[in-house]
């Protein structure tokens, strides 16, 4: 159980990036976060991961406060961020350094098989394609068996086919141990394919604007009318989230009319 209690963040330069976010995610749930650029999605994810500390509020994992990177929380960044001096297998096993070698090797081999890269185990990261590198990054984050996996636009740099392929891979891996997934994305289809719940954020300061349940059966049919209904629901909420609501915002909007 992951709980956010009034999590806010003001950066050192005075930018109020995040304002009192409350969220509670149950075991095995997949939550997608969508919103315009600069509305604080990455800030929120970094606060949950413990890489940054929130200025207000707190993050609780099973009742325990998260203040620094936690062994039960894994993160996948927008870029693969593989360590270039380690082979593919070395990268996947990076988080298992303190385990016995036999166990480490077995788990790395298993993870590489799951992401379909077992024959690339001894290659260098520079020899991989972008999609393969991101699959290695997913394997690296999942191998320590986290309870929470955070993903910050993990597939946004990839082409549409590779993206769909990796979404399926991710769901397959998730089904093994069913961690909590929190996924930031710009792609509404991706959110609807993967998530149980979709949070729409609103900028300046970043906060949760709307919450949409995507209670479609899995595996999800991208062409079904139910899928389309949820997608249009999310699109509409996104649209509204980017429009000014209060008159006090009107000046600001006028300044950006061009």
């Amino acid at each position, binding site marked *: 159980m992951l709980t956010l209690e009034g999590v806010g963040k003001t950066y050192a330069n005075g930018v109020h990036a995040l304002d009192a976010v409350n969220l509670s995610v149950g075991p095995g749930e997949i939550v997608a976060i969508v919103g315009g650029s600069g509305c604080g999605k990455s800030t929120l994810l970094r606060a949950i*991961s413990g*890489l940054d500390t929130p200025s207000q509020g707190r993050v609780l994992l099973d009742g325990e406060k998260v203040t*620094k*990177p*936690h*062994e039960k929380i*894994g*993160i996948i*960044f927008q*870029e693969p*961020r593989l*360590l*270039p*001096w*380690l082979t593919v297998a070395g990268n996947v096993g*990076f*988080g298992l*350094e303190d385990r016995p070698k036999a166990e480490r090797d077995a788990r790395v081999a298993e993870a590489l098989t799951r992401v379909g890269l077992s024959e690339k185990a001894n290659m*260098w*990261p*520079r020899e991989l394609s972008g999609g393969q590198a991101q699959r290695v990054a997913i394997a690296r984050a999942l191998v320590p068996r986290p309870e929470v996996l955070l993903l910050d636009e993990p597939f946004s740099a990839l082409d549409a086919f590779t993206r769909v392929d990796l979404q399926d891979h991710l769901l397959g891996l998730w089904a093994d141990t069913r961690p909590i997934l929190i996924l930031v994305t710009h792609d509404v289809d991706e959110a609807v394919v993967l998530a149980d719940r979709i949070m729409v954020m609103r900028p300046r300061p970043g906060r949760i604007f709307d919450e949409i349940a995507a209670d479609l059966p899995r595996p999800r049919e991208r062409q079904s009318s139910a899928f389309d209904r949820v997608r249009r629901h999310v699109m509409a909420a996104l649209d509204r989230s980017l429009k000014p609501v209060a008159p006090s915002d009107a000046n600001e909007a006028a300044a950006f009319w061009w």
Partner: protein
Amino acid sequence: MSLVRMSAAIEPAAQPKQKTGKSVLARWSGPALGLILPLGLAVGWELAVRAGLSNGRLVPPPSVIYATFAELAKTGELQRHAAATLARVVAGFGIGVVVGTLLGAITGYSMLVRRFIDPSLQALRAIPSIAWVPLFILWLGIFEASKVTLIAVGVFFPVYLGVMGAVMSVDRKIVEVGRAFRLSGAKMVRRILLPAVLPAYVIALRSGLGLGWMFVVAAEFMGASEGLGFLLVDGQQLGKPAQIVAAIVAFAVIGKITDWLIVGITAPFLRWEDRFKSPAAEG
């Protein structure tokens, strides 16, 4: 020759058989091309002296240099002088590398320390290091200590600058991966920072070594009874140009070998590097 190379690069791989033939040629044509000028000059000079066009006293022909070299090697003189010089370079290089690495790592890591000591070190760097020679002799005497110190100063600066720059430019995103896996302190250094700075460190060591060889000559000029630098001075004073050239050749050979040693020892740790490779080297 360069035409052959160019056409090999431009032609598509439609004729694989011909292509391998050309790439062998291309691989050797580069070094061969570079050898034509020096070999041509050497042979030309040798012939000119033999033909009596010049007496070759001030610029000895290759055969005389070789004879001098062989003579020096046979009497063991060459080995003794080379060993003395090598010992000075090794000692100075060792000291310069240790101090440069430590200070470079600390200043690269801590902004406070960098602000505190880097300006002073940069100011010292602006002094031509040979200018220290009189002071070092006054402080440390004319024997080994002042020579090794001068070499160490020469080695220190490139190593210090290289390490500081490398530590400062370690990718924040990669460090964050380490943090996400809860690394800190010694583990962060061993698993993230050290491998990340290694390529730049090797370059810093190599330029430090180059300066070490340069400064050993300066150090041996300021009065030595042995060493390759002594052979240079001795050759000048006694009017033996062949001995001077033989010593220069010895410098070149030993300098290159020590450089190869650094490259060879570190190469296994740098196989991962994503470097630019020229098409000829890859083929």
